[in-house]
Protein backbone atom coordinates (compact mmCIF):
# COMPACT_ATOMS: atom_id res chain seq x y z
CA UNK A 1 0.00 0.00 0.00
CA UNK A 2 2.78 2.31 0.89
CA UNK A 3 4.48 1.84 -2.46
CA UNK A 4 1.54 3.15 -4.40
CA UNK A 5 1.22 6.12 -2.06
CA UNK A 6 4.90 6.73 -2.56
CA UNK A 7 4.70 6.50 -6.32
CA UNK A 8 1.71 8.83 -6.46
CA UNK A 9 3.37 11.33 -4.16
CA UNK A 10 6.60 11.23 -6.13
CA UNK A 11 4.82 12.02 -9.36
CA UNK A 12 2.88 14.80 -7.66
CA UNK A 13 6.12 16.13 -6.20
CA UNK A 14 7.89 16.14 -9.54
CA UNK A 15 5.02 17.99 -11.18
CA UNK A 16 4.89 20.53 -8.38
CA UNK A 17 8.65 21.04 -8.58
CA UNK A 18 8.41 21.65 -12.31
CA UNK A 19 5.61 24.12 -11.71
CA UNK A 20 7.65 25.77 -8.98
CA UNK A 21 10.70 26.08 -11.21
CA UNK A 22 8.60 27.61 -13.94
CA UNK A 23 7.17 30.14 -11.56
CA UNK A 24 10.55 30.96 -10.06
CA UNK A 25 12.32 31.47 -13.35
CA UNK A 26 9.66 32.55 -15.79
CA UNK A 27 6.53 33.78 -14.08
CA UNK A 28 7.76 35.93 -11.21
CA UNK A 29 9.18 39.33 -12.14
CA UNK A 30 12.66 40.28 -11.02
CA UNK A 31 12.73 42.03 -7.71
CA UNK A 32 13.62 45.70 -7.87
CA UNK A 33 16.31 46.14 -5.24
CA UNK A 34 18.09 42.82 -5.20
CA UNK A 35 17.92 41.69 -8.77
CA UNK A 36 17.92 38.14 -9.97
CA UNK A 37 19.66 36.74 -6.88
CA UNK A 38 16.48 37.33 -4.93
CA UNK A 39 15.00 34.25 -6.56
CA UNK A 40 17.01 32.22 -4.10
CA UNK A 41 14.34 33.30 -1.63
CA UNK A 42 11.90 30.87 -3.24
CA UNK A 43 14.06 27.92 -2.31
CA UNK A 44 15.47 29.32 0.90
CA UNK A 45 12.17 30.00 2.68
CA UNK A 46 10.45 26.65 1.95
CA UNK A 47 13.62 24.80 3.00
CA UNK A 48 13.72 26.72 6.27
CA UNK A 49 10.04 26.28 6.94
CA UNK A 50 10.18 22.55 6.26
CA UNK A 51 13.33 22.07 8.31
CA UNK A 52 11.49 23.61 11.21
CA UNK A 53 8.48 21.36 10.57
CA UNK A 54 10.82 18.36 10.47
CA UNK A 55 12.22 19.22 13.88
CA UNK A 56 8.75 19.84 15.22
CA UNK A 57 7.87 16.32 14.07
CA UNK A 58 10.97 15.05 15.87
CA UNK A 59 9.82 16.82 19.02
CA UNK A 60 6.29 15.40 18.93
CA UNK A 61 7.48 11.90 18.06
CA UNK A 62 10.11 12.03 20.80
CA UNK A 63 7.50 12.94 23.40
CA UNK A 64 5.08 10.26 22.21
CA UNK A 65 7.89 7.71 22.05
CA UNK A 66 8.94 8.38 25.63
CA UNK A 67 5.36 8.01 26.77
CA UNK A 68 4.22 5.05 24.68
CA UNK A 69 7.55 3.31 23.93
CA UNK A 70 6.34 2.16 20.52
CA UNK A 71 9.49 2.00 18.34
CA UNK A 72 7.60 3.22 15.29
CA UNK A 73 7.55 6.74 16.74
CA UNK A 74 11.29 6.61 17.21
CA UNK A 75 11.73 5.55 13.58
CA UNK A 76 9.73 8.55 12.38
CA UNK A 77 11.67 10.84 14.71
CA UNK A 78 15.09 9.73 13.50
CA UNK A 79 14.07 9.80 9.84
CA UNK A 80 12.57 13.24 10.22
CA UNK A 81 15.71 14.47 11.99
CA UNK A 82 17.94 13.23 9.20
CA UNK A 83 15.89 14.98 6.52
CA UNK A 84 15.62 18.03 8.76
CA UNK A 85 19.41 18.24 9.04
CA UNK A 86 19.75 18.02 5.26
CA UNK A 87 17.15 20.73 4.71
CA UNK A 88 18.76 22.90 7.40
CA UNK A 89 22.18 22.53 5.78
CA UNK A 90 20.64 23.51 2.46
CA UNK A 91 18.89 26.55 3.79
CA UNK A 92 21.98 27.69 5.70
CA UNK A 93 24.04 27.34 2.51
CA UNK A 94 21.41 29.07 0.37
CA UNK A 95 21.16 31.83 2.96
CA UNK A 96 24.91 32.40 2.84
CA UNK A 97 25.01 32.39 -0.94
CA UNK A 98 22.20 34.90 -0.93
CA UNK A 99 23.79 37.06 1.74
CA UNK A 100 27.17 37.37 0.05
CA UNK A 101 26.05 39.28 -3.04
CA UNK A 102 23.41 41.30 -1.19
CA UNK A 103 25.08 42.23 2.09
CA UNK A 104 28.68 41.51 1.19
CA UNK A 105 29.19 39.01 4.01
CA UNK A 106 28.69 35.26 4.21
CA UNK A 107 27.16 35.39 7.66
CA UNK A 108 25.73 37.76 10.24
CA UNK A 109 24.93 37.00 13.86
CA UNK A 110 21.24 37.65 13.57
CA UNK A 111 18.59 35.89 15.70
CA UNK A 112 17.10 33.64 13.07
CA UNK A 113 20.41 32.65 11.52
CA UNK A 114 22.05 32.00 14.88
CA UNK A 115 19.07 30.00 16.10
CA UNK A 116 19.19 28.03 12.85
CA UNK A 117 22.86 27.27 13.36
CA UNK A 118 22.24 26.11 16.92
CA UNK A 119 19.31 24.02 15.71
CA UNK A 120 21.55 22.41 13.11
CA UNK A 121 24.21 21.57 15.67
CA UNK A 122 21.71 20.20 18.16
CA UNK A 123 20.12 17.87 15.64
CA UNK A 124 23.43 16.66 14.31
CA UNK A 125 24.20 15.81 17.94
CA UNK A 126 20.80 14.09 18.06
CA UNK A 127 21.79 11.83 15.17
CA UNK A 128 25.27 11.24 16.59
CA UNK A 129 24.02 10.24 20.05
CA UNK A 130 22.18 7.31 18.54
CA UNK A 131 25.32 5.96 16.96
CA UNK A 132 27.27 6.29 20.21
CA UNK A 133 25.07 3.97 22.21
CA UNK A 134 25.33 0.18 22.23
CA UNK A 135 21.75 -0.66 23.06
CA UNK A 136 19.36 0.49 20.32
CA UNK A 137 16.44 1.02 22.62
CA UNK A 138 18.52 3.09 24.97
CA UNK A 139 19.84 5.11 22.05
CA UNK A 140 16.27 5.85 21.03
CA UNK A 141 15.40 7.03 24.52
CA UNK A 142 18.45 9.26 24.84
CA UNK A 143 17.92 10.71 21.38
CA UNK A 144 14.29 11.47 22.30
CA UNK A 145 15.53 13.49 25.26
CA UNK A 146 17.90 15.46 23.04
CA UNK A 147 15.11 16.02 20.54
CA UNK A 148 12.86 17.46 23.23
CA UNK A 149 15.51 19.61 24.91
CA UNK A 150 16.77 20.89 21.57
CA UNK A 151 13.41 21.94 20.26
CA UNK A 152 12.50 23.76 23.45
CA UNK A 153 15.85 25.51 23.52
CA UNK A 154 15.79 27.03 20.07
CA UNK A 155 13.14 29.70 20.70
CA UNK A 156 15.06 30.75 23.81
CA UNK A 157 18.21 31.07 21.69
CA UNK A 158 16.34 33.19 19.14
CA UNK A 159 14.97 35.41 21.89
CA UNK A 160 18.37 35.85 23.51
CA UNK A 161 20.04 36.72 20.22
CA UNK A 162 17.22 39.11 19.30
CA UNK A 163 17.73 40.97 22.54
CA UNK A 164 21.50 40.88 22.07
CA UNK A 165 21.06 42.18 18.58
CA UNK A 166 19.34 45.41 19.62
CA UNK A 167 22.81 46.59 20.54
CA UNK A 168 24.28 45.63 17.19
CA UNK A 169 21.88 46.78 14.50
CA UNK A 170 22.43 45.33 11.08
CA UNK A 171 20.83 44.99 7.67
CA UNK A 172 17.30 43.74 8.06
CA UNK A 173 16.41 40.52 6.33
CA UNK A 174 14.20 41.05 3.33
CA UNK A 175 10.92 41.97 4.99
CA UNK A 176 8.34 44.16 3.44
CA UNK A 177 5.18 43.08 1.68
CA UNK A 178 5.16 40.48 -1.02
CA UNK A 179 3.68 41.25 -4.37
CA UNK A 180 0.89 38.79 -5.22
CA UNK A 181 2.94 37.04 -7.91
CA UNK A 182 5.73 36.50 -5.40
CA UNK A 183 3.28 35.17 -2.86
CA UNK A 184 1.85 32.64 -5.30
CA UNK A 185 5.32 31.52 -6.33
CA UNK A 186 6.29 31.11 -2.71
CA UNK A 187 3.17 29.10 -1.94
CA UNK A 188 3.74 26.77 -4.88
CA UNK A 189 7.33 26.31 -3.77
CA UNK A 190 6.34 25.55 -0.21
CA UNK A 191 3.84 22.97 -1.43
CA UNK A 192 6.40 21.41 -3.76
CA UNK A 193 8.94 21.14 -0.96
CA UNK A 194 6.37 19.75 1.46
CA UNK A 195 5.59 16.96 -0.96
CA UNK A 196 9.33 16.41 -1.43
CA UNK A 197 9.73 16.19 2.33
CA UNK A 198 6.94 13.63 2.58
CA UNK A 199 8.42 11.57 -0.24
CA UNK A 200 11.85 11.58 1.43
CA UNK A 201 10.32 10.70 4.79
CA UNK A 202 8.33 7.80 3.36
CA UNK A 203 11.38 6.52 1.46
CA UNK A 204 13.49 6.66 4.59
CA UNK A 205 10.81 4.98 6.67
CA UNK A 206 10.46 2.24 4.07
CA UNK A 207 14.21 1.66 4.34
CA UNK A 208 13.99 1.49 8.10
CA UNK A 209 11.08 -0.95 7.89
CA UNK A 210 13.09 -3.31 5.71
CA UNK A 211 16.03 -2.98 8.08
CA UNK A 212 13.96 -4.05 11.05
CA UNK A 213 12.52 -6.88 8.99
CA UNK A 214 16.06 -8.05 8.34
CA UNK A 215 16.86 -7.83 12.03
CA UNK A 216 13.86 -10.03 12.80
CA UNK A 217 15.01 -12.60 10.29
CA UNK A 218 18.52 -12.60 11.75
CA UNK A 219 17.05 -13.14 15.19
CA UNK A 220 15.17 -16.18 13.95
CA UNK A 221 18.20 -17.57 12.20
CA UNK A 222 20.25 -17.41 15.35
Amino acid at each position, binding site marked *: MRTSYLRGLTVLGLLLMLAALYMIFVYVPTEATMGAVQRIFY*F*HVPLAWLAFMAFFIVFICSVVYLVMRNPKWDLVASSSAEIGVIFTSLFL*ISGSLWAKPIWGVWWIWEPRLTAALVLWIIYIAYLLVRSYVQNKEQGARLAAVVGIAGFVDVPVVALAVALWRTDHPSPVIFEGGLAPSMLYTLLVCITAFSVLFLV*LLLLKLA*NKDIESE*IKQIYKQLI
Partner: protein
Amino acid sequence: MDNLGFLFAVFGIAWLVLFFYVLVLIRGQDRLRKEVTKLNAIMKEKGTDKPAH
Protein backbone atom coordinates in the same frame (compact mmCIF):
# COMPACT_ATOMS: atom_id res chain seq x y z
CA MET B 1 22.60 40.37 -15.28
CA ASP B 2 23.81 40.55 -11.72
CA ASN B 3 25.10 37.82 -9.46
CA LEU B 4 23.63 34.99 -11.48
CA GLY B 5 26.54 32.83 -10.37
CA PHE B 6 25.19 32.77 -6.82
CA LEU B 7 21.68 31.97 -8.02
CA PHE B 8 22.96 29.06 -10.05
CA ALA B 9 25.10 27.86 -7.15
CA VAL B 10 22.14 27.72 -4.76
CA PHE B 11 19.85 25.86 -7.11
CA GLY B 12 22.64 23.60 -8.29
CA ILE B 13 23.69 22.65 -4.78
CA ALA B 14 20.11 22.12 -3.61
CA TRP B 15 19.34 19.88 -6.58
CA LEU B 16 22.54 17.89 -6.31
CA VAL B 17 22.18 17.28 -2.58
CA LEU B 18 18.53 16.28 -2.80
CA PHE B 19 19.14 14.16 -5.89
CA PHE B 20 22.01 12.31 -4.24
CA TYR B 21 20.01 11.80 -1.08
CA VAL B 22 17.15 10.24 -3.04
CA LEU B 23 19.72 8.11 -4.88
CA VAL B 24 21.22 6.92 -1.60
CA LEU B 25 17.79 6.07 -0.24
CA ILE B 26 16.73 4.15 -3.34
CA ARG B 27 20.05 2.30 -3.64
CA GLY B 28 19.78 1.44 0.04
CA GLN B 29 16.33 0.08 -0.47
CA ASP B 30 17.48 -2.11 -3.38
CA ARG B 31 20.34 -3.45 -1.34
CA LEU B 32 18.07 -4.17 1.62
CA ARG B 33 15.45 -5.87 -0.53
CA LYS B 34 18.10 -8.13 -2.04
CA GLU B 35 19.25 -9.03 1.43
CA VAL B 36 15.71 -9.86 2.48
CA THR B 37 15.18 -12.22 -0.46
CA LYS B 38 18.53 -13.84 0.24
CA LEU B 39 17.70 -14.28 3.90
CA ASN B 40 14.25 -15.60 3.14
CA ALA B 41 15.84 -18.21 0.89
CA ILE B 42 18.18 -19.22 3.71
CA MET B 43 15.23 -19.38 6.08
CA LYS B 44 13.38 -21.73 3.75
CA GLU B 45 16.43 -23.99 3.50
CA LYS B 46 16.90 -24.04 7.21
CA GLY B 47 13.22 -24.74 7.66
CA THR B 48 13.49 -27.95 5.62
CA ASP B 49 16.92 -29.00 6.97
CA LYS B 50 16.47 -28.50 10.68
CA PRO B 51 14.64 -31.16 12.62
CA ALA B 52 11.67 -29.87 14.59
CA HIS B 53 12.59 -28.76 18.15
